[in-house]
């Protein structure tokens, strides 16, 4: 069974704040859930499916269902794949709707690490104990594997095997910063140059500070509905054409750092959607670091493996004139990476592009097909990926 055309995204909402003090986590989930429902023109009484991940407080979504006032739920899913959870959840919601298990599904993300004092990535990583019974922890934690180090390991190996350079990675940040300059909500709105990136301090060689994403509070939500529900709404919906997910890990001591689970999730999503990378008008690509973007672009098939460095250079990712307009909200690198989980904002910006509601200077003209891709966990060890391909309602 295919989900192609069986479900639509009818509402999307990104929390406008980047630092949120004096609100509980549940309250922030409520703000984004209600924001997205209002965007769709729906109410809590219409909701019969709820999807959340590890950021939701309480008991696997059940606490949040109560807080939010969802009293007609007949489907619940709390799949946890880190930052990609919300891309995976769009696929799972479409599957549930296609199977008749629900007709109005809400997906939420919220968090406030910035208000809690987190300002830089990479603090406190690495101990031998903790994380309960996590089986790998004693063989990794004692060596100080923070998130910066894990992504730097992948960057180093890519450079070694394919000759990728720091300059090439810097072009990814440059494009994101130009897009963010048009986003009034973006945390960082200054345009940066390749030189700015290369002159920013090394945080974990070969990655610089400006190769890293921002740390922000907030979150977002999307509403996935059946074709019948979508048809009766005034607001423009976006059709879900395809979805894929995948898991990659250290593979019994044979980790290969040159690719991610996007190889698995992307292939499935393209097949289900019946399109190819050259059909994609706009792509939201997970951008915890510049290297994340580069490797995933290769894995999704936008260019050959190892050629990502050349592909992303010289403005190729800039909207609207680049070869592959990406992350037109400024992405996790410059705009927003709420709760260190970037998948939700990837979906939301793809919806904006298809609705023609991106910030005007970066709106892709006649955007017909968009992709949103997320990676959660770390590409330096283990992660889960999700890819969705979206189109116009009549696609």
């Amino acid at each position, binding site marked *: 069974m295919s989900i192609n055309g069986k479900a639509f995204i009818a509402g999307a909402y990104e929390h406008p704040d980047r630092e949120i003090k004096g609100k509980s986590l549940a309250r922030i989930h409520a703000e984004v859930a209600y924001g997205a429902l209002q965007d769709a023109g729906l109410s809590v009484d219409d909701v019969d499916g709820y999807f959340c991940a590890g950021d939701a407080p309480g008991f696997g979504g059940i606490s949040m269902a109560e807080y939010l006032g969802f009293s007609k739920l007949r489907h619940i899913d709390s799949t946890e794949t880190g930052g990609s959870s919300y891309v995976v959840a769009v696929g799972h919601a479409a599957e549930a709707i296609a199977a008749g298990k629900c007709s109005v599904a809400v997906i939420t993300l919220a968090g406030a690490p910035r208000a809690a004092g987190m300002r*830089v*990535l*990479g*603090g*406190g*990583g*690495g*101990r*031998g*104990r903790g994380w309960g019974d996590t*089986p*790998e*922890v*004693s*063989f*990794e*934690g*004692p*060596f*100080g*594997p*923070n998130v*910066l*180090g*894990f992504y*730097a*390991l*992948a*960057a*180093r*190996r890519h450079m*070694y095997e394919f000759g990728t350079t720091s300059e090439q990675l810097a072009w990814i940040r440059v494009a994101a910063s130009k897009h963010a300059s048009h986003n009034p909500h973006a945390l960082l709105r200054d345009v940066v140059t390749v030189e700015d990136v290369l002159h920013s*301090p*090394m*945080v*974990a*060689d*070969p*990655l610089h500070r400006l190769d890293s994403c921002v740390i922000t509070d907030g979150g977002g939500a999307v509403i996935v509905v059946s074709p019948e529900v979508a048809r009766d709404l005034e607001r423009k919906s976006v059709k879900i054409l395809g979805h894929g997910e995948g898991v990659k890990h*250290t593979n*019994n*001591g*044979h*980790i290969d*750092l040159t690719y991610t689970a996007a190889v698995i999730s992307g292939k499935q999503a393209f097949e289900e959607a019946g399109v190819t990378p050259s059909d994609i008008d706009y792509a939201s690509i997970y951008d915890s670091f510049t290297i994340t973007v580069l490797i995933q672009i290769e894995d999704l098939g936008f260019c050959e493996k190892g050629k990502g460095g050349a592909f992303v250079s010289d403005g190729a990712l800039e909207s609207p004139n680049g070869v592959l307009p990406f992350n037109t909200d400024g992405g996790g690198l410059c705009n927003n990476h709420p709760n260190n989980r970037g998948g939700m904002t990837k979906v939301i910006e793809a919806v904006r592009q298809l609705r023609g509601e991106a910030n005007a200077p970066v709106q892709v003209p006649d955007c017909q097909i968009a992709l949103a891709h997320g990676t959660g966990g770390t590409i330096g*060890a283990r992660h889960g990926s999700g890819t969705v391909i979206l189109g116009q309602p009549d696609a």
Partner: protein
Amino acid sequence: MPELPVFPPTVSPEAKPFWDATAEGKILLPKCNDCGTVIWYPRTTCPECMSSDVSWFEASGRGTIYSFAVVRRNGGPWRDALPYVLAYVELEEGPRILTNIVDTIDLECGQSVEAVFADTGEGNALVRFKTV
């Protein structure tokens, strides 16, 4: 190079032979008696063939750097050790294992390294590496 912090591991029942051997400066690896797979990280079920017939053999302690990162930002007990090297070392026996290189940050992928053992004070040691 600053001294790296030493964290005692949680020793699972299945990985105890590995940890016990580190106290004597040895790396013991589990190997599946049914399919011949060298298993990493240490456990006594085979992720290739589901066998639980696993025995232990001594590795050479030599390997090459598969990848490395020079970490310049971290908190807690790692702050005083900055910059330190996080690396995957590919053992001669095959597995790529996460570790530290302790003697220099001036490294290349493919470089040869050998094991050194950092006593945790709990009857075992962490397996780190230095250049040869």
